């Protein structure tokens, strides 16, 4: 607990509650004081305060005590009265304005962080002018008649030695001059201690005269009460004091040198002595005396039981007397005011017990008298006394509270007293660290008078800050409140100050609603003060206020632009939040040796292209991943890391802006900021409005708008974009910079102009971007900073290529002839072009002469003779890099056209990548070669779904039944199935039933499905085996599926059919299981029946070709056989069983001789049949949609299975194989043999003769090991079902 004797409150009380002295003086005295630029009071003031006046004091109690601190308050008689309201307000106002002007300087200072605010001691935080302000407030309440400590204790009469008849002056100064009403209206004792001071000015007049006068005075007024005061003894008014004691007392800041410039040491000493003598020898004893006298009277009249009773009774009687408020109800000689005086004197002499006891005594009386004002005053004093005694703080607070409320109850007349009491109360609480309560008190003080309330609220705020724990939010809140009040009585500087304080609270938090409000108003007020930079800085904070209501956003924006207009300048703002750039979406596209035909191609990721270009790019490049390494020998070292771009070719940067607001904004002149420097002067880069680092920290600067972007158009061009964004819209802006001369180009940032007034600038070198690039959006694993460094080299030719009339959407199998066009705008030619296509299955090179043939008719058979039948050579298709012939590449001013075959091989969305490699003629350039990258997306819709099923023909050898199922999957297209061809040397294909049987054959409406049967004949015979190549063309079998003779068959043996057939084979190889000689490839060619043939942009295809490769034909075994014999036999079983002769033809399709063995087995065990069926089901693959019969796999188990199934009705086989149960014979390659068989049947019925098996193995043991160990050397097959019906022959027929 702090000792109350040295708290702030104590100091205040010393100032406020201390003996008052009325000063009367003649004008001449004032004049002589004026020499020092001081009034008499001002001159005496410093010496009327005693920090240690060591005077023994004896009040009511007998033992004396020593008084340390003491002070006299000097007033001219004219000032001893309450100030008028206006005057008081005026003084307050001036105090505040003065204070505001004083701390205008720190308004621009750095914003304090809230942490630091907490830690800083309250002293430097709380503005120092609060004391003055409070003092003014308290002084305003002074000299009310209801309290005695303001009543003058003594009267100081000062007469100059130059006055004629000084004695007379002394007398009538007191009598004539207008005395304050306090003395007249009897509220205080007019008999007052007088002290006569003769002021002598040494500048004029002799001291002797003065002494003479003094002697006379002594005679008239008594020796003790007179004194001579000599001043202005210094000869020339040049006295200097290092610490000027007057300056602190005169708050009007005039030049402080003159104060006391005529006073030398002795004068000051004399002044001091005078005041000391005055107070210690006269005032204090006087007060002591008075206290003792009064004390005796009081104790006589009021102490003791009898007096109490009498007093009470007397008051009762006094009640009914109507009291008139005009005249003071207590005259000075009334007991109450005597007690009050007693109390106050005791208080002023720091005898607080005495004071307190008297206050207690009197307060009840006042209460009974309902003299509220007096009562309150006494309560107030009691509170203070309690505090000074430092006992029972509860009582102290209770008294203060009581006084406060009472004053408040009285109403507006006591407003000042309320304030004063409140201030003292708050001080008391503060002295006891009850800051929160103090804040509450301040809050209560703040009345309707806005200026006072503003200050009080601010003090309350600081109290909250200093309370433990600090209540920051309340601190902020009250600062804001007081700020608003300051604003109301246009103390804008103070308003800004408080708001700044509040801002420190709200800065970090998520309470954006409040924060924006604070920022916004600070900005506005700064603008009013004319400090636009600060203002804009603050308003900028709230610009990106997406969370605010629409109206608020408009308000903010409007204010912002208004401020901007007021400044008249154009501001350039770093990281302007409007619109917002979202960095992760920044993309830089530039072309060094890679050039892109379309932006789409640029977006394809690099690795894909590199994989494509691997074979073409020169092998000199050790690692193609980073092409720059290759150039390192040519390039200076510093460029190694930087990208290369070519002069005259644009660098594209895609930046996406987002408008956070709900209101549309217009953004204009969006452009890149670039820094270009030519090699020759690397020292000073020709910068273009780019921001240097030191500019970054001060985020705001004014620029001359004109000439900014066009600074050095000689070096590069910038594209400017204007966009207008709706609320919440995101716009992707394509910005380009085109360097014109060689050197290094650096993309620094992007700049834009917000609705024509504010230039926003955003640097790319912010960490946001770096992080993102580390993620690897742009080229390599370099940071974006490096990625934005470009080495500009001199221009090299750049090819442009397009593929004409490449359809967006096609149907599966669509076959087209496209033309690719390559242009070279530059004069310098390029040489040895190469091309590679990512999906040869879809797109492949055609021969150039295809260009001048018209498609597709030249593919028809009859036109074969006209053109050289180019068969596809394996070499061309093996390596997919296509070399353009030299003659084209050497010279071209005209664009070069080259045909391409396009076929939509599979449905889905296909993206085709084409790269064209070419080299530049001139060796000087850094870039030796370039690649043109073309990218297309094609959407392929399903058209015909075709599936084939081949089963061996039961009747004939070498023949198979082919069932083709075609379903039209499209929704609208109609197709005409044109022809089916099977590729391969040894096949012949024919329709099962002749064409024209039904005309609708091969015409497929949308969604329709069709199935037709073919006979596939294997025409591989001995002799045709050796020269396979020669007999390639003849073997091909095409079947026309249209009845109209007009449309000829297509020749499937030539490009593009064979070309794509090759690719299809390669493609389907993967999931087809290996290719032994027993697979067939089918090509189905269909035409689309498009009646909508009008208009060149035709989307419907002309020709569709569908390839089905590796369709397995019937048997997997190389040995084929067929059984023939009678299908039905009539026999008379009465004459024994029936013998039937059968004949089996066995054919060996292999090039080697095999030995075949036929086993006939009579009975089959049940068991294996079941197991087999199980295993069979296991064998079946997924259920296929279009063909309702599956391919017959002649695998041993499945056969067995079928046997089992077939057998299931009968229990035991009713027939047996007669003759040998097994036959063995040898078969020459590609030859057949007849084997006779015989069965014996016992009863009539239909029998399935499938219970035999055929085993074969290669004879070629000696030449078997010719490398192909892979193929099967032996196998066994079960017999195929052969049904025979035996009927009973009845005699009657014979």
């Amino acid at each position, binding site marked *: 607990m702090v000792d109350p004797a040295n708290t702030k409150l104590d100091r205040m009380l010393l100032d406020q509650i201390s003996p008052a002295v009325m000063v009367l003086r003649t004008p001449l005295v004032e004049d002589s004081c004026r020499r020092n630029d001081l009034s008499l009071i001002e001159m005496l003031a410093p010496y009327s305060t005693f920090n240690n006046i060591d005077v023994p004091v004896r009040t009511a109690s007998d033992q004396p005590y020593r008084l340390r601190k003491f002070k006299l308050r000097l007033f001219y008689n004219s000032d001893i009265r309450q100030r008028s309201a206006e005057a008081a307000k005026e003084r307050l106002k001036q105090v505040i304005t003065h204070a505001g002007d004083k701390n205008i300087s720190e308004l621009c200072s750095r914003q304090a962080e809230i942490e630091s605010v907490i830690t800083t001691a309250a002293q430097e935080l709380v503005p120092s002018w609060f004391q003055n302000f409070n003092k003014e407030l308290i002084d305003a309440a002074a000299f009310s008649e209801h309290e005695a400590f303001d009543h003058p204790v003594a009267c100081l009469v000062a007469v100059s030695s130059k006055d004629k008849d000084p004695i007379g002056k002394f007398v009538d100064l007191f009598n004539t001059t207008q005395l304050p009403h306090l003395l007249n209206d009897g509220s205080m004792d007019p008999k007052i201690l007088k002290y006569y001071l003769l002021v002598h000015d040494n500048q004029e007049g002799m001291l002797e005269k003065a002494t003479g006068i003094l002697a006379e005075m002594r005679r008239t007024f008594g020796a003790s009460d007179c004194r001579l005061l000599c001043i202005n003894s210094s000869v020339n008014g040049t006295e200097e004091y290092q610490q000027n004691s007057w300056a602190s007392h005169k708050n009007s800041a005039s030049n402080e040198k003159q104060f006391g410039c005529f006073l030398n040491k002795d004068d000051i000493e004399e002044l001091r002595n005078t005041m000391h003598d005055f107070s210690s020898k006269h005032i204090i004893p006087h007060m002591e005396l008075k206290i003792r006298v009064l004390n005796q009277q009081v104790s006589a009249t009021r102490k003791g039981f009898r007096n109490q009773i009498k007093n009470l009774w007397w008051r009762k009687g006094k009640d009914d007397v109507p009291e008139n408020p005009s005249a003071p109800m207590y005259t000075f000689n009334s007991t109450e005011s005597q007690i009050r005086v007693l109390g106050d004197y005791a208080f002023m002499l720091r005898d607080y017990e005495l004071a307190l006891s008297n206050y207690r005594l009197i307060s009840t009386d006042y209460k009974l008298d309902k003299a509220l004002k007096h009562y309150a005053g006494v309560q107030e004093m009691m509170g203070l006394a309690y505090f000074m005694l430092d006992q029972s703080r509860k009582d102290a607070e209770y008294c203060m509270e009581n006084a406060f409320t009472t004053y408040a109850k009285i109403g507006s007349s006591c407003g000042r007293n309320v304030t004063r009491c409140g201030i003292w109360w708050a001080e008391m609480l503060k002295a006891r660290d009850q800051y929160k309560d103090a804040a509450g008190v301040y809050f209560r003080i703040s009345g309707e008078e806005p200026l006072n309330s503003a200050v009080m609220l601010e003090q309350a705020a600081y109290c909250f800050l200093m309370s433990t724990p600090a209540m920051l939010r309340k601190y902020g809140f009250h600062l804001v409140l007081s700020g608003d009040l300051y604003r109301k009585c246009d103390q804008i500087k103070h308003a800004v100050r408080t708001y700044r304080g509040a801002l420190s609270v709200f800065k970090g938090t998520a309470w954006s609603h409040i924060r924006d409000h604070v920022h916004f108003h600070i900005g506005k007020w700064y603008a009013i003060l004319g400090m636009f930079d600060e203002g804009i800085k603050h308003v900028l904070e709230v610009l990106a206020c997406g969370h605010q209501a629409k109206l608020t956003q408009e308000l903010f924006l409007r204010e912002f632009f208004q401020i901007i207009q007021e400044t008249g300048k154009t501001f350039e703002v770093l990281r302007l939040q409007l619109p917002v750039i979202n960095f992760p979406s920044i993309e830089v596209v530039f072309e060094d040796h890679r050039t892109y035909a379309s932006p789409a191609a640029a977006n394809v990721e690099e690795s894909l292209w590199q994989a494509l270009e691997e074979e073409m790019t020169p092998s000199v490049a050790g690692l193609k991943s980073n092409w720059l390494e290759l150039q390192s020998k040519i390039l200076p070292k510093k460029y190694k890391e930087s990208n290369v771009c070519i002069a005259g070719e644009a660098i594209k940067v895609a930046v996406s802006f987002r408008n956070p607001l709900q209101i549309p904004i217009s953004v204009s002149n969006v452009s890149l900021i670039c820094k270009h420097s030519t090699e020759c002067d690397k020292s000073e880069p020709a910068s273009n409005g780019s921001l240097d680092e030191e500019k970054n920290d001060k985020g705001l600067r004014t620029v001359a708008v004109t000439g900014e972007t066009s600074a050095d158009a000689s070096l590069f061009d910038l594209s400017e974009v204007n966009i207008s964004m709706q609320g919440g819209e995101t716009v992707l802006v394509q910005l380009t910079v085109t360097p014109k001369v060689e050197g290094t180009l650096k993309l620094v940032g992007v700049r834009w102009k917000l609705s024509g007034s504010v230039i926003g600038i955003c640097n790319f070198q912010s960490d946001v971007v770096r992080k993102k690039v580390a993620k690897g959006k742009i080229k390599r694993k370099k940071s974006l900073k490096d990625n934005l460094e470009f080495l500009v080299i001199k221009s090299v030719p750049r090819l442009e290529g397009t593929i004409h009339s490449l359809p967006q959407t096609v149907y599966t199998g669509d076959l087209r002839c496209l033309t690719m066009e390559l242009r070279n705008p530059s004069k310098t030619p390029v040489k040895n072009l190469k091309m590679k296509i990512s999906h040869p299955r879809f797109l492949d090179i055609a021969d150039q002469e295809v260009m001048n043939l018209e498609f597709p008719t030249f593919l028809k058979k009859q036109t074969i003779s006209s053109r050289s039948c180019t068969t596809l050579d394996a070499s061309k298709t093996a390596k997919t890099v296509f070399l353009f012939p030299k003659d084209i590449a050497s010279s071209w001013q005209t664009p070069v056209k080259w045909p391409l075959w396009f076929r939509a091989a599979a449905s889905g969305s296909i993206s085709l990548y084409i790269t064209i490699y070419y080299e530049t003629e001139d060796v000087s350039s850094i870039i030796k070669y370039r690649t043109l990258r073309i990218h297309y997306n094609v959407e392929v819709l399903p058209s015909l779904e075709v599936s084939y099923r081949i089963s061996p023909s039961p009747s004939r050898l070498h023949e198979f*039944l082919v069932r083709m199922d075609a379903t039209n999957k499209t929704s609208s297209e109609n197709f005409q199935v044109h022809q089916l061809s099977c590729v391969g040397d040894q096949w012949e294909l024919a329709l099962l039933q002749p064409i024209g049987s039904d005309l609708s054959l091969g015409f497929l409406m949308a969604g329709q499905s069709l199935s037709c049967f073919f006979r596939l004949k294997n025409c591989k015979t001995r002799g045709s085996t050796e020269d396979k190549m020669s007999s390639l063309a003849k073997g091909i079998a095409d079947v026309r599926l249209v009845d109209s003779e007009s449309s000829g068959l297509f020749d499937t043996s030539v490009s593009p059919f064979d070309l794509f057939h090759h690719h299809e084979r390669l493609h389907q190889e993967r999931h087809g299981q290996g290719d032994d000689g027993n697979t067939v490839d089918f090509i189905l060619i269909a035409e689309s029946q498009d009646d909508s043939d009008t208009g060149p942009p035709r989307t419907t295809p002309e020709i569709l070709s569908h390839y089905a490769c590796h369709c397995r034909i019937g048997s997997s075994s190389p040995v084929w056989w067929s059984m023939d014999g009678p299908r039905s036999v009539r026999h008379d079983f009465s004459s024994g069983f029936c013998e039937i002769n059968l004949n089996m033809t066995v054919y060996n399709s292999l090039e080697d001789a095999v030995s075949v063995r036929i086993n006939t087995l009579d009975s089959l065990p049940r068991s294996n049949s079941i197991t087999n069926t199980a295993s069979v*089901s296991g064998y079946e693959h997924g*259920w296929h949609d279009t063909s*309702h*019969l*599956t391919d*017959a796999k002649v695998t041993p188990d499945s056969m067995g*299975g*079928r046997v089992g199934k077939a057998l299931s009705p009968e229990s035991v086989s009713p027939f047996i194989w007669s003759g040998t149960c097994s036959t063995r014979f040898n078969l020459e390659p590609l030859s057949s043999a007849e084997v006779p068989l015989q069965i014996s049947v016992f009863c009539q019925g239909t029998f399935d003769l499938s219970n035999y098996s055929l085993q074969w193995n290669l004879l070629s043991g000696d030449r078997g090991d010719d490398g192909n160990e892979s193929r099967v050397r032996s196998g066994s097959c079960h017999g195929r*079902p052969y049904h025979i019906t035996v009927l009973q022959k009845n005699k009657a027929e014979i």
Partner: protein
Amino acid sequence: MAPAAPKSGDVIFASVDRVNAELFTLTYGAIVRQLITDLEEVEEVNKQLDQMGYNIGVRLVDEFLAKSSVSRCVDFRETADVIAKVGFKMFLGVTASVTNWDADGTTCSLILEDNPLVDFVELPDTCQGLHYCNILSGVVRGALEMVSMKTEVTWLRDMLRGDDVFELQVKLLKQVPEEYPYKDDE
């Protein structure tokens, strides 16, 4: 024939062991959120959910058939009924109603008044177009495919999009003959 569907549904639901509903809901929610963050496309999320549902369905159907002694359904109508009354009750604890049969009895709608998946759920504006419960459609599809019905399941109404109920349209594409499809004659 299936036993009296709704009753048996309740019985089974009573018999199966449970998990806390909140846990279930939150788990599913977490999955969906993760999917959204992983593959930013809402459409992708729908696909993924459907796929997950499908995978669940193909496993779930066995348990379903085992626990609920539902015998072969004669036709699609009955199947739908069983799903609605037994299946949903058994696994979600709610019963759906079957309506909106089309003429040839291959398309119907399962109406879910309440759906434990979507408690607390509220679609943000960023992913409108998300079928939050798409996993259910996947489950139905997968389960039906296991009993050899190729179906197409789509959401017609979604409470998360402000509709009053969940409506799941089940459309029978193809009934695959279950018997072994191959004859050995030609």
